[in-house]
């Protein structure tokens, strides 16, 4: 019958590093969503679009215009944040579902442009060769790692950079959350009218929140580009945003550290289920994996509706 699970890969460092890199990139991506959804109450379904804009801007500046990476990265982040402002300006006045639809549409537009503006983006062939500087850094890091006997694990450098980046962004966001600025965002999340009655310009805060989230999305986009070494439209499909939302719900709304827990859990389940040996076609197995992720989501919602790291009081008392 079923050829039980072969658990051998779970004991290998490669497996864990691979899961760690992807989970880390999704964690960074979802930090932006957490800022919008968990802290400001903006349902941003367009985060994958900002990620794509950042990554493409970075690759185009480096490959086409030969900018040095240290200049291209901040410039591309700025471009993504500007895109965040452009999308936010007309849309954050909308409430709930309407805002969600508008941001989703914006991400679709980005993907269509990426596919069709071939002169700029390379269309479906994508862009290559933006990571020369990274290759050099990677070789150097592996050299250092070989001194401690880890020179063969070539995923370690990206793993370290990804989680270091996550840590820095998370600390900044946690600090921001505890400033008066963060307090206004939380008030807007709860009741925009109350915030307005107290003299807070909710519109301006929402635009800022979207711009920051877009910048964070762009950073996740660079790291994803380094992981897959090719930027093409499929790399940054809108599905990314929905996986981000699953991570958000798993980890707990409003808790930045919860994002990492949610992401690791989700990617562990997704990747570990690869090794289940079933008499099924590949596409059936793929569907089954998502099914299992769905079950995990339902389980968490039943047992811990506030998410792994969420605060129950805030969920119950809100609204």
């Amino acid at each position, binding site marked *: 019958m079923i050829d039980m699970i072969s658990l051998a890969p779970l004991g290998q460092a490669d497996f864990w590093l691979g899961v760690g890199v992807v989970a880390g990139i999704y964690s960074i991506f979802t930090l932006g969503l957490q800022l919008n959804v968990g802290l400001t109450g903006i349902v941003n379904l367009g985060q994958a679009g900002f990620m794509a804009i950042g990554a493409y801007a970075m690759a185009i500046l480096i490959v086409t215009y030969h900018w040095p990476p240290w200049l291209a990265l901040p410039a591309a982040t700025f471009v993504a944040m500007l895109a965040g402002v452009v999308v936010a300006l007309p849309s954050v006045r909308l409430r709930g579902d309407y805002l969600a639809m508008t941001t989703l549409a914006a991400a679709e537009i980005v993907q269509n442009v990426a596919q069709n503006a071939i002169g700029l983006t390379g269309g479906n062939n994508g862009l290559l060769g933006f990571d020369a500087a990274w290759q050099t850094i990677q070789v150097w890091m592996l050299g250092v790692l070989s001194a401690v006997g880890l020179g063969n694990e070539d995923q370690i450098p990206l793993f370290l950079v990804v989680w270091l980046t996550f840590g820095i962004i998370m600390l900044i966001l946690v600090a921001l959350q505890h400033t008066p600025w963060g307090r206004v965002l939380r008030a807007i999340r709860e009741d925009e009218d109350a915030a307005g009655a*107290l003299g807070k310009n909710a519109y301006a805060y929402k635009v800022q929140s979207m711009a920051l989230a877009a910048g964070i999305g762009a950073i996740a986009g660079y790291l994803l580009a380094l992981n897959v070494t090719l930027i093409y439209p499929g790399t940054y499909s809108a599905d990314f945003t929905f996986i981000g939302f699953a991570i958000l719900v798993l980890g707990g709304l409003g808790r930045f550290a919860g994002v990492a827990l949610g992401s690791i859990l989700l990617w562990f389940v997704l990747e570990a289920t690869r090794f289940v040996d079933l008499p099924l076609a590949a596409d059936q197995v793929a569907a089954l994996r998502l099914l299992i992720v769905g079950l995990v989501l339902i389980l968490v919602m039943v047992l811990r509706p506030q998410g792994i790291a969420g605060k129950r009081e805030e*969920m119950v008392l*809100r609204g």
Partner: protein
Amino acid sequence: MADPIFVVRALVKSFGGLRAVDEASFDVSPASITALIGPNGAGKTTLFNLATGFIKPDRGSIEFDGESIFGRPPFAVARLGMMRTFQITKALTAMTVLENMMLAADDQPGERILGLVTHPFSWVPKERAVRERAMELLERFGLVALADAYAGILSGGQRKLLEFARLLMAKPRMVLLDEPLAGVNAVLGQQILAHMHALRSEQSLTFLFIEHDMEVVMNNADRVIVMALGRVIASGLPDEVRRDQAVIDAYLGAHGENVA
């Protein structure tokens, strides 16, 4: 009499075919306590919403302290110094009572993201000052024991007190209270009225409040504005209004039993 602080002229707002506010005109004097009364559906809350920017007026004029606030967004009206409470309170329930208070401070540079960068060291001591002022106001309003509780656990009356105390953090010059005594027990109600009188005499704060209890209005208001069917049908001293034939016809006559 001093120049009025709040002037409304020929204000109109229609919802479809219904004129919720119909050519309403009135003045409010500074440092006064003015009651806005009228039967249900008279347009009182709509008038508050128009004045504070929550609904866009169709035409007419609204001036606060000599400046037009016609059609301005709520945050801009609040920053000019005219603030309001809501009939159904808007306590931020998943934030603590103290956070609710501190949020309302009007002079915290750390509230702007650029301010965090340009004033990296001044917002932290400012936060301490804001907390201190918040605790003083909570003390005054008898909520200090609840400072660290989530606002969501407060009773209806306590939420009214919190909403009142909270807007004082922003140092308004005029306060619109939408049924501050509705659903509040008699003791708390008396406290709210006492706070109004004290703040008016200490800080020359101007109050406009909507109230249905005629005894409260007669005993506490300097002047009374009466609305019916979207129009201002009378305004004046409580005793004048009580004897006004238009008011008796439109309001007291029809609903006399509510008014005793």
